[in-house]
Every structure is written in C-alpha cells, then in structure tokens.
C-alpha cells in the first residue's frame, strides 16, 4: 500500500475543534506579541531607501541561511543551526500536513502526501527534528553549565528552552506512538530513523493512548508559538527584517545632518530615546542578548563601565516604557476629549522631559568607546552600537556636556584645523631634505600623498611618512603633498560628536582637493583613509583613496618596488581597527611583510577583523584614562607574548599607543614598534643602497 499517514489519527472531532481553538489563542498571543513590539518602531524616521536589492538578499542569505556571523563560534553556531533549521523544517512540515489535510477534506482522497514524497519528508523531518533536539540540548547545557559571562540568565531563558526541548521530545514520542499505534505504518519504519527508537517502548499501544501523547505534545507546541515574541526569540522575526532593510552606509560611516534640520528641529543627535530611527528601533528588538558585543569590546575587557549589550537593552527598555506611556497618555486624552469637547492645551508630542532622555547611558560608558566597531562586527543582528553611541555624543557635545582634555582638543582643532593646535606652516617640517613638491592642479602627479596631522606633527608618525616618501621615490612614483593646505580630515571631531566642526573641515578639504584635481589619494593613517573614502563622498569628494600599505602592495605586485627578502628575524602585525575591521583590509600589509619581505610572521590570535583595539580611536587619544584600564596594555601583552622581534603597525595612533604600552610592559628588551613602511625601508637600507633609475636593478 502507498505509504502515507493518517492526519489527526484517532483524534476526535471535538478534540480537533479544541485544537483549533487553542491554536487560535496561541496564534493571537503570538501575533499580538509581535505587533506590540512592531508599533514601537513606527515613531522613528522611516527606513532608508533601498536600491541594492541583490546585495541585501545576498546578505540575508549569508546571515539567515549560511549563519555566517552566528557560526563564528563553533559550539554556539552549531546549536543555532540545529535549532533554526529544525524549527524551519518542522514548520514547513506542518504546513505541508495542513495543506494536505484540507486538500483531503475537500477532495476526499489523499492528495500529495504519499509515496516517495511522503517518505522523503518523513526522513528529513526526523533528521531536522533530531538537529532541533540536539541544538536545544546544547543550548541548555551551555546556559546551565558553562554560564557564559555576558549571555544573561533569567528564568524566561531556561523556561523557553525547556519548553522547546519538551515540545521536541514529546514530538518524537508522539511520532513513536503513532508508529506503534498505526499498523499501516509498520513497513516504513526505516524512514523514521529517530521516531522508530521512540516507538520501541511503545509497541502495542492503543489509539486512545496515542491520543494522550497528542494532548501532551500539542499544547506544548502551541505554547512555543505563543511564547516566541515574548523574549529573545523575537529575533527570529526581526533579524531578517533588519538585514533586508539596513542602510547602505558602510560600517563606520556616520550619518550626516544638515544645519537647516538642526535649526528647524532644534535638536541634534540622540537626545531622547525616541530620536532613534525606525531601523535602529527595530534593530534593538533584534537583539538576542547573546553578549558577543560585550565579549569583544576592548573597553569592557579592561574593566571600564562600557557594556555595549547593556546599552542596547537599556535603550530598548526605555523605548518600551516611553512609548507605552505616551500611548496611555494619548488614550486618556482621547477619552477626555470625548467627554469634554472643549479644547484642552495641546501636549507637546514626544519629549516628556527627563523620563525619556538617553541619559540612561552614563558619561563614563559613553566616552569609553573607541569606535573600534568590534561590537558591530560581532553582532548577528547587525545592530550598529557605534552609530548609537556617536549619536548620543552628538547630543551631549551640543549641550556643552563635554569638558576636559577632549574639549581642549576640539578647541584646538576648531582654531588651527589640527587636533594638536599647531601652526599649519609646520606641516612640511617632516619633509626636510626630501624635496617633495607641493600639489597644484597641473602637477601631473600619479597620486596625492595625504600626510595627515599625525604625520605632520607627531614625531613617530613623521618617521613613518618619511619612510613612505622614500619608498614612493624609490618606486619612481610621481607624487605631491598638500603641505600647509592640508587640514584635519575631521575624524576626531566626528567621532567625538562635534558634527558641524567635522562638516566644516570636510567641506574645506573637499574644496582644496577638488581644487588640485585630486583623483587618487594615499594616506598614512587609517582614520584619514576611512573618513575620506567612506564619508567624504557625501560632501562632494569622490576620490580613489588607498591606505599606504595597499598602494605599496600594488607597487610591489607591479614590480615597481623590489624588496629584499628575509633580513629580519620575525615580526608580528597589529591590525588597525579602522583598516582591518571597518574597511576589511588585512591582506596588503601581510603581502608586504610576509609575502614580499618574507619575514616570518607570527600572528596573534586577535587579528584581522578580530583585532583588539589599541585604545586611541573615538577621540580617546586625547582623553585621560586610569593606568589599570588601558586597552593598549592588554594588547601589548598579547603582542609581546608572540616573541616576535619586531612589532609592525599600520596606523600612527596605534604606533603611539602600542609603542608606549610595549615600552611600559616590555622592559629593557622590548621589540621596536615600527610601521610597515619603516620595516620595508630598513630592509632596503640593509640590502642595496638606493638606485636612482628604476629598471636598473
């Protein structure tokens, strides 16, 4: 006989009716739970325009199907794959059964759920069900035994997982009971590989007993469905939406705001939680509270108050309270208006005062952030914590709540167009003796070398830019510099929250760059690189921007720069956050160190996009911090542990922070901290003296 299954096997009509009733209740509770969160999103600025659908769908596929971010951790990733695909499969299975059932009712014969198709479904459902069972078990085990620090632990968490586990177990039991109670299915036991094990102890049970299993299993499943939107599992619905609807702004590129908008609204930045836009509000609801953001946070790692996960939870809770309150308020007013038609003074919409302020996030937390984006990179829900933090910073700076050395830096930046307040006339001091021409529109250059403020004024960075200049000259690259016409790209201003100072600098720089017809720009510093590449286009500055290691790697590839190999003992490389993580460039420096120079490269564990921040970003270079809470020291210890004879960096901030930290903890025999370009120059100096004509070698 054709393999098939009797749907609602021995479940009476009354039972079915009760089932439908309970299902209705459960669905309502689920939909209501979702709706209750959804309406919180409506208040904010609408979702950004979507142009690049293919990229979004690709991203959705990557995260929702391939689970790319989730699977960065093996154990957690595997259990998630098991639970996710298990639930999807069982859901599809139920839908199939449902369609079949109504089809059967209409047509009075078995429609499609039979034969090979049926058997295939059976096998797959069993296997996916097993995946679900194992996944849920792994999750509970991790939660109860390993107790990860930042995961968070409430009775709701354990309760839901237990519910899910029971539902799955009873599901298998039900299957086993069904196999045991229905003799028609006996020939096909092999196609229920897991279910059959559950059927063994239940051999010979009656349909009535089967019904009991059904009555146990069904409410549990309905319970799972009902519970979904009421805790972390809401992410199931939300994360796909956040992925599809995300902004096209690259990571680390902040949103602009116009002066007109500020004048009109009288607000800037995230003053109140209701200032979060629609996507941000939705993303908060996608937070699964996994804690990976906090696990990755360098400030948190050295004991500072900053906890990215807590920021998300605090804002989410506050948003809920505020919106619920304003809803009750509106309802009350409507009721009043109905009873008393005379006009009453209009409440100011939104801002209720102290209650909804983003002040829930303390100053200590807010200013501890180095903008390294480790949290943003880790988050499987694609939450952009740094955008939120920098948004609150914008508000607080506008309110005059920034004081101290960072404020001094902003004053100096505002006055002299560089954060150290030094005169622009000194910007070429580093180039003494090198004869580097300054740029103009007709100089026929190949590239414009953007030296940056550190390169111009900071002694260690000056050595780096000299090395870069030397290498460019060796390679025969025709390059020019802006000299005193250069001004800070505005990165410290933007990351600290002084948006308009940033815009002022950006606009002025774009005018200068366009004035000299800039096309290709190479920078020494990843912050200059990131800002000009990702944020200047919004101000009319479209250039090809390269980090110096990228351009040097290109020169090596093209054969224009020949490097001697293997002169140094060993090197370890500290990936700069804004290059490696925010802009995905990890290959070029390695091509130079390991590939071209062939120095044995000893890697640290926290490398490439997992790199650990030196602590200087987000304006923190200019903020004081307690000796015991320095990310730089944490990183220095890691770098020293490699035993490498040289530490290579690619950023002037890293060079200072890592350099100082290594000098602090490394003692007498601490390895030197050099930029990749300096390592290259040292190698060349040891090998052949400079040949003037290229192609001579």
């Amino acid at each position, binding site marked *: 006989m054709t393999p098939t299954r009797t749907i609602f096997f021995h479940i009476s009509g009354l039972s079915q009716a009760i089932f439908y009733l309970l299902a209705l209740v459960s669905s309502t509770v689920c939909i209501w739970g979702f709706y209750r969160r959804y309406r919180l999103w409506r208040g904010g600025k609408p979702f950004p325009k979507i142009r690049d659908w293919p990229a979004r769908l690709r991203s959705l596929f990557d995260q929702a199907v391939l689970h790319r971010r989730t699977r960065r951790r093996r154990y957690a990733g595997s259990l998630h794959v098991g639970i996710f695909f298990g639930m999807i499969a069982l859901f599809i299975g139920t839908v199939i059964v449902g369609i079949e059932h109504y089809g059967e009712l209409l047509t009075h014969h078995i429609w499609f759920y039979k034969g090979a198709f049926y058997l295939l479904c059976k096998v797959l459902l069993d296997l996916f069900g097993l995946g679900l069972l194992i996944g849920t078990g792994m999750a509970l085990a991790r939660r109860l035994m390993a107790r990860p620090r930042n995961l968070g632990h409430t009775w709701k968490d354990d309760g839901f997982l237990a519910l899910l586990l029971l539902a799955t177990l009873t599901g298998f039991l039900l299957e086993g009971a069904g196999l045991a109670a229905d003799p028609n299915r006996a020939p096909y036991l092999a196609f229920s590989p897991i279910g059959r094990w559950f059927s063994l102890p239940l051999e010979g049970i009656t349909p009535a007993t089967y019904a009991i299993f059904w009555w146990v299993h069904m409410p549990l499943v309905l319970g799972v469905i009902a519970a979904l939107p009421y805790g972390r599992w809401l992410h199931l619905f939300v994360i796909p939406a956040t992925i599809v609807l995300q902004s096209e702004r690259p990571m680390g590129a902040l949103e602009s705001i116009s002066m007109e908008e500020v004048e009109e609204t009288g607000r800037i930045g995230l003053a109140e939680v209701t200032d979060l836009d629609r996507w941000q509000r939705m993303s908060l609801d996608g937070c699964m509270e996994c804690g990976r953001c906090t696990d990755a946070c360098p400030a948190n790692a050295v004991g500072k108050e900053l906890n990215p996960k807590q920021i998300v939870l605090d804002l989410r809770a506050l948003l809920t309270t505020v919106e619920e309150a304003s809803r009750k308020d509106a309802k009350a007013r409507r009721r009043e208006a109905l009873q008393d038609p005379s006009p009453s003074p209009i409440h100011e919409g939104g801002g209720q005062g102290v209650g909804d302020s983003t002040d829930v996030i303390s100053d200590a937390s807010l200013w501890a952030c180095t903008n390294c984006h480790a949290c943003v990179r880790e988050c499987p829900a694609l939450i952009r914590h740094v955008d939120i933090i920098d948004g609150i910073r914008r508000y607080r700076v506008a309110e005059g709540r920034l004081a101290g*050395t960072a404020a001094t830096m902003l004053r100096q930046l505002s006055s002299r167009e560089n954060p150290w307040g030094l005169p622009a006339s000194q910007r070429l001091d580093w180039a003494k003796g090198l004869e580097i021409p300054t740029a103009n529109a007709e100089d026929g250059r190949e590239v414009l070398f953007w030296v940056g403020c550190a390169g111009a*004024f*900071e*002694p260690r960075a000056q050595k780096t830019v000299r090395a870069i200049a030397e290498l460019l000259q060796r390679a025969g690259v025709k390059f020019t510099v802006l000299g005193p016409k250069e001004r800070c790209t505005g990165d410290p201003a933007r990351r600290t929250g002084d948006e308009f100072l940033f815009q002022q600098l950006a606009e002025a720089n774009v005018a200068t760059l366009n004035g000299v017809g800039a096309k290709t720009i190479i920078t020494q510093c990843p912050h200059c690189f990131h800002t000009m590449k990702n944020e200047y286009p919004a101000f009319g500055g479209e250039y090809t921007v390269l980090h110096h290691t990228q351009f040097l790697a290109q020169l090596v590839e093209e054969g224009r720069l020949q490097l001697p190999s293997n002169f140094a003992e060993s090197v370890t490389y500290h990936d700069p956050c804004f290059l490696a993580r925010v802009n995905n460039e990890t290959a070029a420096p390695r091509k130079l160190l390991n590939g071209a120079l062939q120095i044995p490269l000893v890697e640290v564990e926290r490398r490439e996009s997992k790199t650990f921040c030196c602590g200087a970003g987000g304006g923190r270079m200019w903020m*004081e911090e307690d000796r015991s809470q320095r990310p730089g020291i944490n990183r220095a210890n890691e770098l020293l542990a490699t035993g490498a004879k040289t530490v290579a960096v690619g950023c002037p901030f890293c060079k*200072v922070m890592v350099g*100082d930290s290594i000098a*602090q903890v490394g003692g007498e025999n601490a390895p030197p901290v050099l930029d990749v370009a300096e390592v290259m120059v040292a190698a060349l100096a040891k090998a052949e003296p400079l040949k003037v004509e290229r192609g001579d070698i």
Partner: protein
Amino acid sequence: MTKLLVLAETDGASVLPDTLPTLAFAQSWAAATGGSYDLLLTGGPEIAQAATDWQSYGAGHVLVAASPDLTHPVADRLAAVVNAALQQTGATSLAAPSSTFGRDVLPRIAALRDLPMLSDVLSVTNSGNGLTFRRPMYAGNLIATVTLVGNEGVFSVRGTAFGKPEPSATASPIEAFTGEMTPTQGTTWIGLDAPERKRPDLTAARVVVSGGRPLRDAETFERLLGGLADKLGGAVGATRAAVDSGIAPNELQVGQTGKVVAPELYIAAGISGSIQHLAGMKDSKVIVAINTDPDAPIFQVADYGLVADLHQAVPELTRKL
C-alpha cells in the same frame, strides 16, 4: 616737583625682596621726570622695625603704616590707606611690584584717584615729549610702547625687567603714616594657606624642571629634579611615562592629557619629546633639553640641547648655578 610713591610688598611683618626692582623703576622714573620718590611700608606692628633696612635706597621719605589691622590687608582696606598716604606725601604717581599683591590693590587705588594705570612696566624713558613706557601684550608676544595722557599714573613693575636699585649714601628719614587705618566692613580675611617649602604651582611657575622615565625611581626624581627646581625657584613636572611608572605623582603630569604650561624656562631632562608631551609645553619661552639620545624629537623644539646623561648633568647644573 612731581613725586612717585613706591608701595613696598610686605607679608605683614617684613618687606619682600621684589620691592627692590620697583625701587629701581622709581629711580628710572625719577631720572626721566626729574622728580623724587617716597617709599611706603604697610603691615603689622613688626613692619616698623624693617624700615631701617630700607633707608638707603634714595627715597625722599620712608613712610610706615603699622597696625594690627594691616597684618593681612585686603584690597579695599589697603587701597584706602595708600590713598591717604598719597595725600600725605603729596605724590601723584604710584608704583608697586606686579605680583598678585600689587595687581590686586593698585588698580583699585588708580580708580579711587582717577589715574591711568600701566601693568607690567618693562621700562620708562623720557622721550623729550613726556614719558614713554614699554609693556608686554598678548602674553608677551608683542611689546607695546605706550604713553599716558597727563604723565601721572599708577605702575605695576615687572621685576625681571629691572635690576637692583642704586644704593644711596643719604639715609631716608622715617615718617609715621598719619591717616586712618580702620578696617572696612565689606571684606573679611579668613586665612592663608602658604605651605612651608612650597614650590610654585606648575601652571604658574616661571621655571619648570621636568623629567621622564629615565629618572628610574621616585627618590631620584625628587632629588635631581626637585633640587634643580628649588635652586631656580621653579616647579617640577613629569611626563606621562614617569607618572605611569610611579616615579612622579599624577599632578605633575605635563602634556595633552595633563597640564599645559608656558613658563619662561622649561628644562626637559630624560624626555624624548612625544607629541603628547610637547602639546603641554610647546609655548614655553626657552626650552632646554638634556637627553642621551641625540635623535630624540625633543631636540627639534629645544632652544638649547645638551646630549648628556641627566644623572650627571642635572646635579652639575644645580651645583654650578
């Protein structure tokens, strides 16, 4: 004949040495105007005994205003006394050191007597058309040549611009102040916190002696740098690295996340010159660097660079000063 009254700076019991350059100014002024000058000492009862030490500086008279109420004079009280002293001596101009003492009370007296005042006078000459003075502006970045309408005025005198006054063979007669010395109602003197062996405040000191990690330990740091600072009457500073290594307290940190200083003389011993440190002292008038590393960035900003080991050079410098 025109007369200038010199208000001596006292601590209530004795006259402070910065009165000397003011007397030198008075002598220049007298030479330029052909006038004379008197000296006024104010303070508690002990100040009367000090008067005899100040008779040999060519003052026409040494006027003594001694009263318990003047031991800690507050500006309004002292201004009233000086105002009366001007009348008693017939002086139409007034000078005092440009210390916090002078700067506090002189302008008040200038307003009481409706006189113009020049702060931080560097020189006085007779241009043929009246008196010409020089004084600093824009934190010393510019020197202004100024004149007064009427040639009578109140002057606070910058001590480093004038040397010692010429001694005079004739002894100045001592006179008692005959005016009122009653306390005013408006201001009450509560107290003075003047630590014993106090170094000047880092941000206000004229000289700062600063050191880095090469000083090795707190004892050496204090001994070498403190010794030199005390010899020069200056303050002690430190780099971030020194503070982090525990060899200097946090309050001494000079730099972009510490204190910003702009003294006349900044001596940097064992400091490499990172930008964070430079940001805190780049506006110093004269920078001296002592470092064993001839390539240290500090030498790029130093006016005088000595490539030497600070452990020898600093004690030698202290000894020879």
